[in-house]
């Protein structure tokens, strides 16, 4: 078998069998399973069907019934009980855990309802909000009755104003589509960001480990460093694809099993009701290109250090580039058509995330995406040629210093005068 394949497969299998890889994969699978089963999990913890009981101390004797009706409309899981004892006893009952809270209803000076809510803690704002909304309704009705407004008039008053947005550009996404796209793009951006950082790191560590353990010298006496570098990059690339495939398959199966409960609610808002195939394809393309760009960079940076401890320091500038790209992309989620986003999407180090953001969120012409991909691919080739030369010298250099001046030294080492 060709040496290239031997190294590729060795790198791949070796990493695949490593403990850290197995643990990260399992942990992530658990998280994916957790997210896709989120509704089931919430239901497990809310055994009593999520119902909450509140004691009502009605000082007026007139408010309890209408209040109960209104609250039932808002949230039927809230159980209101008219409490017969005095305030002290009611408080005691809350402390004993018989009720989740206690609400005292009264009239104010204008004969309008007002309330005091007491609970062990007031952190549960959703219950409080529901109760407040219910009482608000009661108050509105009473006020309307006082003014002699008919039901019809009242409805008119509360009817929401008609207000819609429309994009003039052809093919532009509607507001609803944009919201959906945003969720999906957001998640995929995260995937690209983490993959690029994690696997580029892995490459740099791998190279530095081989160099610091001095096995490198034996390796490059049997295989040319350039061949070795690219076999390594592809081996780890294959590893990343395998890992992502596991996540995607687990995610997809689990997701489609819980499709009904998930497509409305939390996940529906994130645009997973219907997954656009094109966006996923673009994500894979940009993920791979982004990986190759940063992996090449990481490989030659890794070849410059002599000790593993120095790796992080050496690749920090690279990591910052990825982070910067991600931050710009996060900003772009809210304003994908900003000039700034358009410009940065053509800068190769940012293209994988920002061009992806644009194709995911906007309907940009195909050639724009293609131009971005072409510039990116060109940069990868240039970087690979340059990186290979640095790598060839870098792996032979040992010493304390690990600055970017070493790039020049490494190039000098391979030069034939």
């Amino acid at each position: 078998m060709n040496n290239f394949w031997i190294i590729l497969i060795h790198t791949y299998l070796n990493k695949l069998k490593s403990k850290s890889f197995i643990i990260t994969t399992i942990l992530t699978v658990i998280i994916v399973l957790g997210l896709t089963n989120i509704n089931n999990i919430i239901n497990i913890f809310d055994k009593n069907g999520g119902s909450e009981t509140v004691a009502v101390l009605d000082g007026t004797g007139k408010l309890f019934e209408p209040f109960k009706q209104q609250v039932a409309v808002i949230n039927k899981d809230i159980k209101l009980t008219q409490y017969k004892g005095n305030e002290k006893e009611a408080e005691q009952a809350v402390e004993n855990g018989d009720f989740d809270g206690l609400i005292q209803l009264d009239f104010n000076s204008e004969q309008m309802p007002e309330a005091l809510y007491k609970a062990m803690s007031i952190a549960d704002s959703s219950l409080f909000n529901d109760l407040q909304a219910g009482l608000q309704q009661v108050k509105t009705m009473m006020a309307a009755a006082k003014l002699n407004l008919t039901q019809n008039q009242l409805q008119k008053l509360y009817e929401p104003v008609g207000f819609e947005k429309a994009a003039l550009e052809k093919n532009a996404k509607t507001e609803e589509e944009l919201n959906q796209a945003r969720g999906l793009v957001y998640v995929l951006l995260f995937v690209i960001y983490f993959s690029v950082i994690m696997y580029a790191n892995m490459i740099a560590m791998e190279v530095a480990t081989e160099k610091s353990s001095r096995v490198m010298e034996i390796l490059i006496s049997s295989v040319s460093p350039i061949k070795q570098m690219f076999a390594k990059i592809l081996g780890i690339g294959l590893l990343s694809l395998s890992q992502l495939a596991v996540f995607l398959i687990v995610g997809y199966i689990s997701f489609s099993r819980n499709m009904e409960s998930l497509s409305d609610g939390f996940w529906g808002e994130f645009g997973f009701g219907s997954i656009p195939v094109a966006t996923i394809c673009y994500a894979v393309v940009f993920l791979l290109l982004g990986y190759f760009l940063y992996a090449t960079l990481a490989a030659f940076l890794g070849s410059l250090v002599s000790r593993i401890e120095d790796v992080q320091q050496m690749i920090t500038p690279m990591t910052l580039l990825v982070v910067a790209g991600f931050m710009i992309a996060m900003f772009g989620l809210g304003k994908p058509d900003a000039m700034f986003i358009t410009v940065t999407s053509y800068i190769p180090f940012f293209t994988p995330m920002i061009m992806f953001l644009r194709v995911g969120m906007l309907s940009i012409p195909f050639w724009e995406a293609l131009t971005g991909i072409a510039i990116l691919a060109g940069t990868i080739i240039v970087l690979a040629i340059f990186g290979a030369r640095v790598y060839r010298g870098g792996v032979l250099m040992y010493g304390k210093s690990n600055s970017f001046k070493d790039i020049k030294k490494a190039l000098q080492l391979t030069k034939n005068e």
Partner: protein
Amino acid sequence: MALKLDHVTKRFGTFTAVNDLSLEIPDKEIFGFLGANGAGKTTTFRMILGLLDPSIGKISWGEIPLNYSTSHMVGYLPEERGLYPKLKVRDQIVYLARLRGMQKSEALQELRFWLEKFNVPDYENKKVEELSKGNQQKIQFIAAVIHKPKLLILDEPFSGLDPVNVEQLKDAVIALKENGTTIVFSSHQMHHVEELCEHLCIMHKGKPVVHGSLKEIKRAFGKKNLLIHADFSLESLKDFPGVVKAKPTMEGSLLQIESEIVADSILKEIVGKGFIRKFTLEEPSLNDIFIEKVGASYE
């Protein structure tokens, strides 16, 4: 199929690591390559292996140039030992052997042969980091020779080993030579070189200062050592004509003299002064030659 270095020079920027080195390393022989630290030995090895390209000159092995297509015929034991610490001995030897063009089954068979030979058959499934330094070195040696190279480069193969392990490795090196392997070998321990090598070269600051067969080098050096054990003081011999250096020992004195004739006059000089227990004329050791040729510039 001799290994030939033809006016090889290697410069790194303004620094010249190897300067106009011409060598011919005979086939099926052990060639000693000596030099102080920083003399250019490792750079020369790297050029022979094709890791670095010479700035000037060329290196050939018989008719063919050495490059990655010949890597299955070349074995290399680097000065800095290196193996994957986390990998099992078996996995890494098989991996490295396959990169040198061996089949997996063949590599395993060879590995077991060598482990048996070094009396460590149970290391096959151990991780390298679990082994002692000396034993790691044995594994490293196996990695260098497992594919039966025709040309073997050993950079300091015996450093850091105990005498028993040195003997084991030395025997293995001699056996390889007898099977027709050409071996280039560097060491700082002169007695190893004297024991193993027929031809050698001493490098100093990138230049060969001594080059040839061991016997010729010693003869050409001219100076001899004269060891005298006597009951009387040998102080006065220090200034005797023809004596280059005098070093007092526990029982007498060790003199370095210009030629054999000087020994004769010294004997005449000291006869009758008292009891002479020992009077021996010795060949200079390689150590003396090395120190004289290389050490001179340090003084």
